[in-house]
């Protein structure tokens, strides 16, 4: 009778027998889930519970369940279906959860979802297990004498807030570091940024930093927005698809549904990667190259494109700025030079380039293989240049399809806790603060008062990749008054950040560490390994235990219904935020426009506040009502175009992919493909953004004539709109009187009435952010044209000499950041001799991120029970290593990981690969004793990042994890 699954018993609960339905149906409606479970647990096999009930209920009532279901209205105990979205990657797979008496008893595919059509990978097919979560943190805990002890929420909140307030008082608000999450809903992640702002710091960040920060910065600086331009679905329209640094088959398996469909319809699939991945297995062409040499490879392709005149000359002249400078750099990359640096053959690159050029629209996909490098921002821009040269951006089937990682990393990037921006990429200049202060309904000066100074308010905070240096770095070297004294891990895995050995030291040095997570165990165990006290664990609920919206990689926003009530003693993140805000004394300000019931800020109110303020990226049209309507009528959307045909959402694109301009009333359909001039702006069309001025060095940055979006009144390049331009154009009077009042003195980003956007788009068919050229030359970056620079840890000293890295930076995101000094020291120390193998990392399909959640799921954990390192047979034979042997992976950090050897041709002889999802072993030792009781993942293993080395991107502080060095020896 126990309706909750137990890992001990093989077939208990789950999809319950119909007989059980009836028994459940008879339970009093007032009974709560826990009591029910407890009670029903006593009577295994129906006996106890049933006989107790049978006396009250005539037997006749207990008829055939199906008959009852069919003829009677659902009553308590009947199966209810709730629609939610998988929390494991950015594809946004819809899930129908079947719930009975508050227990998640069944999971059904949603064939109607245009994004996944019912399809799931191993993770998606097992999300129901998270609704049971035996290995979760069940109550607040506190580290006492090196052991975690259960405490009450009241005590936890009191002690946590007291400690943090004490630190704030003593050292200022910047002494606390807040690590938010890409697994929060849009509303939670937005509230988190607001929360941190009211705490008075910019020291906050989340997974996007170590995921796609270089993409976001690189892409946004090239053409406007830092997001996937098209969609998974739109890839069905591609004729050629190039993956580089992406392993979609394992990281975004359901994306392959669309990709393989394209392939079957004739699209050529190409994979360029140091590793022969599962995606490569599905490719027509595969090119192996040395990790970290992406730029030579891309330039090597562009070389052939320019040489053969395959570039789109009109497109470049009308819509691209600075391609001539790129061309200069590219033509230096002759095939032999490319081969020398990257190992890629001329013929292979020629073939890929030709395929891309002659099968248009062609699209590219990249992921962390591109981004996690010291020159990640440049690699990303090199790819942009390739697509711009081919004229692929802004076309259906083309674009830069940048697959995001976590389910809501796009949303968290857009409106979440970023150290350098308020929600919506507004930045942190005074004007941005004023805009949001207005939206939040609080006084700008009050917020300013919360910060230690106005200077700190406009200074980007420390990044999550470097918080450890914020703790450990000498105080005089850091660009804030004090070192970090406390860190709040709010939905982030420590093992996904590099330099694990130093992280342990940082954890030791902290005054307080607070972990808020459904599965805080990796952080908890690491902390308990080096500390005796000062650690608090607060159980957060998963996204299945609350409501909220989530932004998929293609910018579509979906709504999650609450599947079950929070399990155990956990609370949803926004509730915890509110409770902490109460203790900190800014709960009133935090929820000025938001209704609060039982300490829970209303999610829909939060979304409406987001709608009211996020004009920059068009998060304004997606009201809760519209999103919910989409979720309800998924079947009306076309799989290939994502557009609804008929029905209540007629004309909308699924999930109203941002930018969905104007107010919800404007009924903008969302933008399926960015910068697409073939469509009217009110049909989702667009063009490149005018964000970098109108001219540079006498050259116009505005788009050429005839390259405006379809039906625009201005068929030429134009700057972004503000009240002045509107008046000049004589469009001001198209505004209503009310709008005029609000819009005066404002621009398209700050006009809270939405009038400017409405008039510009609906009346005149123009794009609010102007119409400019994309920048192939990003003059504000260290390398305006992408140039190759060797990683700090390279196995090729002669290459380092030719392609040295950047100079060290003194104050960069508040921290000194080393480049050249590390690289040169490595050469001097001959690190390449001791560590002759390239170490790279990536995903497994069964696990996600830090992996605590998925490794706690028995259905997934059974499939991957050991951490391993992939090593080529040649490298293995040279070292006397056989498949499945235990080996030590050693790196220059002096860390050594004991893992299984997987001898495979997937990697070349110079490369080793490790998945990054494991934790729970520390250099050969099982950490189980350090975990909170009953909250250790089923599978534990060495964390790859325990051994990763120093290295950060020169723009975004992205960590380098894809190219470092190691040695492997038999254990």
């Amino acid at each position, binding site marked *: 009778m126990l309706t909750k699954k137990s890992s001990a018993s093989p077939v208990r609960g789950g999809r319950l027998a119909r007989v059980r339905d009836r028994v459940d149906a008879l339970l009093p409606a007032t009974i709560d889930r826990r009591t029910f479970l407890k009670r029903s647990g006593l009577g295994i096999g129906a006996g106890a519970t049933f006989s107790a009930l049978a006396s009250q209920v005539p037997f006749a009532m207990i008829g*055939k369940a*199906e*008959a009852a279901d069919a003829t009677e209205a659902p009553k308590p105990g009947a199966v209810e279906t709730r629609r939610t979205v998988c929390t494991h990657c950015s594809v946004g797979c819809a899930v129908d959860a079947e719930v009975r008496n508050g227990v998640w008893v069944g999971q059904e595919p949603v064939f109607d979802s245009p994004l996944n059509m019912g399809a799931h990978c191993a993770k998606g097919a097992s999300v129901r297990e998270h609704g049971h979560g035996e290995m979760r943190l069940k109550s607040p805990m506190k580290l006492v004498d090196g052991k975690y002890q259960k405490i009450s929420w009241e005590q936890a909140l009191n002690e946590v807030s007291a400690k943090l307030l004490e630190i704030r008082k003593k050292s200022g608000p910047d002494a606390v570091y807040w690590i938010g999450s890409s697994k929060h809903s849009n509303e939670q992640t937005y509230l988190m940024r607001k929360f941190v702002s009211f705490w008075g710091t910019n020291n906050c960040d989340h997974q996007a930093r170590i995921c796609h920060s270089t993409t976001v910065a690189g892409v946004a600086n090239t053409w406007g927005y830092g997001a996937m331009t098209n969609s998974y679905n739109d890839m069905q329209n591609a004729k050629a698809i190039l993956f580089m640094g992406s392993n979609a088959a394992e990281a975004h398996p359901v994306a392959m*549904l669309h990709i393989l469909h394209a392939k079957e319809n004739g699209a050529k699939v190409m994979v360029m990667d140091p590793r022969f991945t599962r995606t490569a297995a599905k490719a027509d062409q595969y090119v192996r190259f040395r990790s970290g040499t992406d730029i030579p490879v891309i330039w090597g392709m562009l070389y052939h494109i320019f040489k053969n005149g395959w570039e789109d000359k009109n497109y470049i002249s009308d819509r691209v700025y600075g391609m001539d400078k790129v061309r200069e750099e590219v033509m230096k990359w002759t095939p032999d030079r490319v081969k020398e640096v990257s190992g890629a053959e001329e013929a292979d690159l020629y073939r890929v380039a030709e395929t891309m050029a002659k099968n248009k629209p062609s699209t590219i996909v990249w992921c962390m293989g591109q981004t996690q490098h010291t020159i990640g921002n440049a690699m990303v821009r090199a790819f942009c240049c390739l697509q711009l040269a081919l004229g692929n951006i802004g076309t259906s089937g083309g674009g830069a399809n940048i697959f995001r990682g976590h389910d809501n990393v796009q949303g968290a990037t857009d409106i979440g806790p970023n150290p350098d921006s308020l929600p919506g990429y507004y930045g942190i200049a005074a004007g941005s603060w004023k805009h949001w202060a207005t939206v939040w309904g609080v006084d700008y000066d009050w917020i300013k008062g919360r910060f230690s100074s106005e200077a700190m308010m406009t200074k980007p905070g420390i990044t999550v990749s470097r918080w450890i240096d914020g703790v450990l770095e000498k105080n005089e070297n850091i660009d804030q008054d004090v070192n970090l004294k406390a860190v709040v891990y709010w939905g982030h895995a420590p093992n996904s950040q590099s330099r694990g050995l130093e992280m342990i030291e940082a954890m030791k040095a902290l005054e307080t560490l607070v972990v808020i997570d459904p599965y805080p165990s990796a952080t908890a165990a690491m902390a308990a390994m080096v500390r005796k006290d000062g650690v608090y664990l607060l159980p957060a609920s998963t996204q299945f235990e609350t409501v909220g919206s989530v932004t998929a990689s293609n910018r579509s926003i979906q709504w999650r219904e609450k599947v079950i009530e929070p399990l155990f003693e956990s609370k949803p993140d926004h509730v915890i935020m509110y409770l902490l805000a109460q203790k900190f004394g800014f709960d009133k300000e935090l929820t000025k426009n938001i209704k609060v019931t039982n300490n829970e800020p209303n999610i829909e109110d939060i979304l409406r506040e987001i709608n009211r303020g996020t004009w920059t990226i068009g998060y304004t049209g997606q009201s809760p009502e519209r999103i919910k309507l989409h979720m309800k009528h998924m079947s009306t959307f076309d799989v290939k175009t994502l557009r609804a045909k008929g029905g209540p959402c007629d004309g909308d694109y699924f999930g109203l992919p941002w930018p969905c301009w104007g107010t919800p009333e404007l009924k903008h359909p969302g933008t399926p493909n960015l910068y697409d001039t073939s469509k009217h702006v009110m049909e989702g069309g667009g063009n490149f953004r005018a964000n970098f001025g109108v001219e540079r060095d006498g050259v116009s940055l505005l788009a050429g004539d005839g390259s405006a979006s379809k039906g625009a009144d201005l068929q030429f390049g134009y700057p972004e709109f503000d009240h002045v331009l509107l008046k000049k154009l004589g469009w001001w009077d198209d505004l209503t009187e009310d709008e005029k009042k609000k819009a005066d003195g404002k621009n398209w980003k700050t006009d809270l009435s939405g009038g400017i956007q409405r008039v510009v788009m609906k009346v005149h068919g123009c794009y609010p952010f102007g119409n400019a050229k994309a920048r192939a030359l990003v003059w504000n970056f260290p390398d305006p044209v992408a140039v190759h620079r060797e990683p700090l840890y390279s196995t090729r000293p002669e290459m380092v000499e030719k392609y040295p890295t950047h100079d060290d930076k003194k104050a960069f995101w508040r921290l000194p950041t080393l480049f050249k000094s590390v690289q040169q020291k490595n050469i001097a120390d001959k690190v390449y001799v001791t560590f002759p193998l390239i170490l790279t990392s990536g995903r497994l399909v069964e696990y996600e991120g830090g992996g605590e959640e998925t490794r706690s799921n028995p259905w997934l954990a059974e499939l991957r029970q050991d951490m391993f390192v992939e090593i080529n047979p040649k490298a293995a034979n040279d070292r006397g290593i056989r498949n499945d042997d235990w080996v030590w992976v050693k790196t220059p950090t002096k860390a050594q990981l004991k893992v299984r050897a997987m001898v495979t041709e997937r990697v070349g002889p110079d490369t080793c690969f490790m998945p990054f999802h494991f934790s729970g072993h520390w250099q050969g030792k099982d950490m189980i004793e350090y975990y909170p009781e009953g909250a250790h993942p089923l599978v534990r293993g060495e964390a790859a990042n325990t051994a990763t080395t120093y290295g950060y991107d020169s723009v975004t502080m992205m960590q380098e994890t894809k190219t470092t060095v190691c040695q492997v020896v038999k254990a």
Partner: protein
Amino acid sequence: MASNPIDLKRRKFLFSAGAGGAGAVAAVAGGRVLLQPEAAVPAAKIPIADRGYQATEHVRNYYRTARV
């Protein structure tokens, strides 16, 4: 139970060998006993019980997605 043709279809295997199974197996007394009345319910009232494959809306929907 055996009087119900739908039951028989799938269970004839079980009962073909004589020795009645239904009563004997009632390990979970509640469950089994409860099921007795079902035999009296006319087949029309049992929408899906004891039936195998049917090309339902759900199944057709699945086939549709497999064609993509």
